[in-house]
């Protein structure tokens, strides 16, 4: 599936949840399914700055595609990073770098895009795109 196809599928999934509580429960559930980063990569080098909680993100290049593993010590943040990994992992670097992430607003998580210090989502997106470009340059 392309990045946009995954985004559309998520928008569809989330449309079943009217209630914020059900949305967050689903996000928390998704967090439990995130491809977990290896313990040895849970270092300062792979921490995403700009989050109130600790978020680790590790990128790898395989067969010309970038794959992400991640973790967080806050459950909702883990869910958010899981969403981002679901959408962006397993694609070519230029697809990741050029992706327009419209699903966040559409699934009702727009407040997570506001650039207050607590918000890591913008930082996550930025970091994932930077990693994609860096891995492409190295390849």
């Amino acid at each position, binding site marked *: 599936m392309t990045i946009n196809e995954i985004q559309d599928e998520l928008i569809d999934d989330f449309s079943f949840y009217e209630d914020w509580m059900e949305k967050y*429960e689903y996000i928390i559930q998704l967090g439990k399914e995130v491809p977990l980063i290896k313990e040895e990569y849970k270092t300062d080098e792979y921490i995403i700055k700009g989050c109130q909680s600790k978020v680790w993100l590790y990128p790898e290049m395989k067969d010309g595609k970038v794959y992400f593993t991640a973790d967080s010590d806050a459950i*909702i943040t883990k869910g958010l990073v899981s969403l981002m990994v679901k959408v962006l992992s397993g694609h070519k670097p230029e697809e990741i770098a050029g992706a327009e992430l419209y699903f966040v607003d559409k699934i009702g998580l727009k407040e997570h895009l506001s650039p207050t210090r607590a918000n890591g989502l913008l930082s996550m997106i930025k970091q994932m795109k930077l990693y994609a470009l860096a891995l492409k340059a190295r390849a």
Partner: protein
Amino acid sequence: MTYFRVDCATFVSHHMKFETLEIFDIQKIRSDFPILKREVNGKPLIYLDNGATTQKPKQVIDAISNYYSDMNSNVHRGVHYLSQISTDAFEVTRRKLQEFIHAAHEHEIILTKGTTESINMVASCYGRAFIDEGDEIIISAMEHHSNIVPWQMLCDEKGCVLKVIPMNDRGELDIEAYKNLFSERTKIASFTYVSNALGTVNPVREMIAIAHGHGVPVLIDGAQAVQHMAIDVQDLDADFFVFSGHKMYGPTGVGVLYGKEKLLNAMPPYQGGGDMIKDVTFAKTTYNDLPFKFEAGTPNIEAGICLTAAIDYIQGIGLEHIKAYEDELLSYATQALSKVEGIRFIGTAIHKSSVISFVVDGTHPYDIGVILDKLGIAVRTGHHCAQPVMERFGIPGTVRVSLAMYNTKEEVDALVAGVERAVRMLR
């Protein structure tokens, strides 16, 4: 009108009943704050983030609007009518602030942008004049970054040394250790009256006396104190006292540096520019007298003038009543929250004011904050600009509830229910 003095020492373990709650008309007070009627995420706003900023009564909101429609004009500079009335109004605030903290002289009240600027001003100006390489500065382990970083910057520049008063597991300063921090090289001590992260009320009068015994002046950070209790800088014998307008129901962008006249006179100015001068030539410029020496440029005129409305509002109710009500509410909230399974309070000093910081085992404070927000409840999560405090307690941050005079027991009940619901979702 009767009122009650509250002994902070006993509030945590006792549930005290006050007739204050009949004198203190909470519904009338709440009706004065328009924002309290609004909804957030489809729920009535429950605003418990008063340590970050307080809401404004309509008296202050109207004053701001009236300022711009009736009198807006630059201050201290003009000969025309509007400039005279706005200058007078600005100086009325200065006089009211003098009374508010019982300073000896009006010119000891410098109007600044806020607490952070006030502290930077002292670090810079007092630092430039009196602190040298190898000198020592005492701060405490519970300070807000605004009372750490300016001193660190001074130490980097001058090669002086920062000494830190440690605290115990309850979040109380170790006074014995404090006494031992003084040496002949100590030049200033700077610490908070009330901790924004822990709610601890420090024994500042006693601590100032100890410092003065060594000939060391003291700066007190009153940002989390002035809205909760009466301040008398002469009684405390504080050398500098700082606070912000927006945390005492006033506008943002204005704050106070109180300094004893002889200290302020001995310090060089902070910023150069208009109003802080007497005469300017390219050969030489002479500086203005206090307070203007430290007030370069056009101030935040509107905020300065409208701070009077906030002071009047507070004094109309009476700080003694506000304190009694808030102490009762803090006690109620602490007891109610203590029933949440796995909750741990961070900051359990005997003497506390308005703040409850907590974590719940098995959860991250950020997650609790997000869910409370969905329920219309505004708290703050994280390190609260006090990272050393979080490090001391070995936690990433806390959920912080900070109360003000318009909060109610019903709001506290909703908070507790919200925390329990969040914990169920997260564990």
